[in-house]
């Protein structure tokens, strides 16, 4: 087990390296020169600089300050070297340290993701099990209909509907608050509903299948009560695909968070990332991507470990 952990952690490093190369390359191939974008961005009340007024001198100075004058590979190595030491550079736009900006936003995304994920696992497993036990009854059909509507509703749309019903009509929850648990309920529901529906369907289908497998039928034949069989034998087995999907959903959570954060006006790294990519704020994009990659590696390590716990026959190799 110990060596397995070490090995998995070790294999995380090429992933992080691959992600760094990918994000670095991607940013440099996107159209738009970040120096010019910074200097000449229109939209001010008074006159920002015209390109003709950007002297070569100023341009070079700016380029140098942002570190964009060096060859690509050198920029990349610099970035890596600093990242290893925990220094992610400063935002081109706000000039604030990226690590600090991320640290200010991250708790809100974590809070949202954790709430959404736990709600969706709890609801998904519960309703999926219920549906499987009531296979081919109206309860099964109704639960699955809700699940299907859950997966087929875009999160921005769901978020607005939740606001309309629970914030405006019923006044149970606030619209634009960011503090306290009441502010978290609607965004978490909007973000977690889809994952809950996916998990419910998976639990149901794999549970139905497991229930028909020999060892379960044997257990049933031996006279163990139905629910006990389900919980002790079948459910645990059915959770393997669920664990996989939870790991996958984690990636989707950031995508979902972008939209949910925008609908509810919440702080968070989803918003931060999209804005940064549109403004070509290299250090911020790199920082966020690297951070999600690290989180991803850790989450999936936990999931691999959970395979072993759920099915002792999977050996750690």
């Amino acid at each position, binding site marked *: 087990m110990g060596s397995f952990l070490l090995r998995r952690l070790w294999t995380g490093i090429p992933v992080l390296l691959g992600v760094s190369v990918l994000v670095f390359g991607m940013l440099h191939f996107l159209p738009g020169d970040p120096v010019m974008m910074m200097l000449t961005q229109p939209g001010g009340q008074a006159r920002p600089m015209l390109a003709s007024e950007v002297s070569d001198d100023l341009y070079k100075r700016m380029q140098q300050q942002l570190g964009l004058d060096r060859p690509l590979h050198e920029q990349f190595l610099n970035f890596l070297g600093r990242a290893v030491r925990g220094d992610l550079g400063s935002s081109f736009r706000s000039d604030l340290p990226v690590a600090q900006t991320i640290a200010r936003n991250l708790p809100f995304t974590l809070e949202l993701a954790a709430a959404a994920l736990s709600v969706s696992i709890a609801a998904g497993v519960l309703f999926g099990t219920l549906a499987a036990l009531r296979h081919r009854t109206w309860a099964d059909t109704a639960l699955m209909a809700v699940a299907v509507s859950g997966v087929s509703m875009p999160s921005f749309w769901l978020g607005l509907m939740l606001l309309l019903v629970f914030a405006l009509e019923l006044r149970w929850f606030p619209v634009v608050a960011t503090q306290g648990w009441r502010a978290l309920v609607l965004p978490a529901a909007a973000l977690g509903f889809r994952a809950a529906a996916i998990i419910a369907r998976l639990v149901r*289908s794999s549970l139905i299948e497991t229930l028909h497998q020999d060892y379960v039928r044997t257990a049933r034949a031996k006279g163990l009560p139905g629910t006990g069989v389900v919980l002790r034998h079948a459910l645990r087995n059915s959770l393997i695909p669920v664990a996989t999907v939870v790991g996958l959903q984690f990636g989707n959570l950031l995508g979902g968070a972008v939209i949910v954060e925008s609908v509810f006006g919440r702080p968070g790294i989803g918003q931060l990332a999209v804005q940064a990519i549109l403004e070509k704020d290299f250090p911020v994009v790199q920082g966020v991507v690297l951070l999600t990659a690290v989180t991803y590696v850790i989450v999936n390590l936990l999931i691999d470990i959970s395979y072993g716990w759920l099915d002792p026959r999977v050996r750690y190799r």
Partner: protein
Amino acid sequence: MSALLRRLVRHPLASTGALILGVFLVAAVFADALAPYRPEAVNADRALLAPSPEHWMGTDRIGRDVLSRIMHGGQLSLRIGLISVAIGATAGLLLGGVAGYRGGWIDDAIMRVLDVLLAFPNILLALAVVGVAGPGLTNLMIAVGVASIPGFARLVRGSVLSAREHDYVVAAQALGASGARVFRLHLLPNVFAPFLVYATLNVALAILNGSGLSYLGLGPAPPASEWGLMLSDGRAFLRRAWWLTAFPGIAIMLAVMAINLLGDGIRDVTDPKLLRARGGERPRS
């Protein structure tokens, strides 16, 4: 194969799904002939009309017929869903199957490459593809499809990993069956059920991811209509013109439901274990 098809036709849920999907496909494919109006025909004097005999689903803010736009929009939405999932599922099945069955360094290598893709936030990947290659349907489908490869691959690998420990697989291997044969006969059926469920759900996801990109302003160019785009455009009218969001929303939901029912049906009729089991439980069918 024809036996399978017959069973599928007799499967009530599957045939319902197929029927609904068929209606959507016909409406989409023959939209030019069937739609009452041109989908891009603007009529400023008839903006924001509620559903009526002339406009069954009302008109949008610049007077275009919602029904016609939904019919034409089906072409785009279904294409985004089906093609991108086809890309992701095919590549994922191959990569995940090989990785899970072979194990060892091949597994490691494949999974690490996929991890890079998976660890890279989807939405940024899509933004980047659109940023480099420009917005467009093909780019959008590739972006959504590529982003879904690791998901399929991991799911397949996980199922294979679990199934290859089953006694009958171990036995078949001990008896000297070739890798491909073991994979096809013993592992694939085990993988198939969760895979199909996941694939059908992914069609929905792909359609929805398309709509998410539309919400962020990276959807298909006008005057094209796409369900997600219609839903996003109509969101500010929630209380003033419900038909702008209700009908595209229902269209997405029905289409997704139909695809899911069909997927479930296929699973039921192709899984021998399940057939046996059901035969035992319910002798009549």
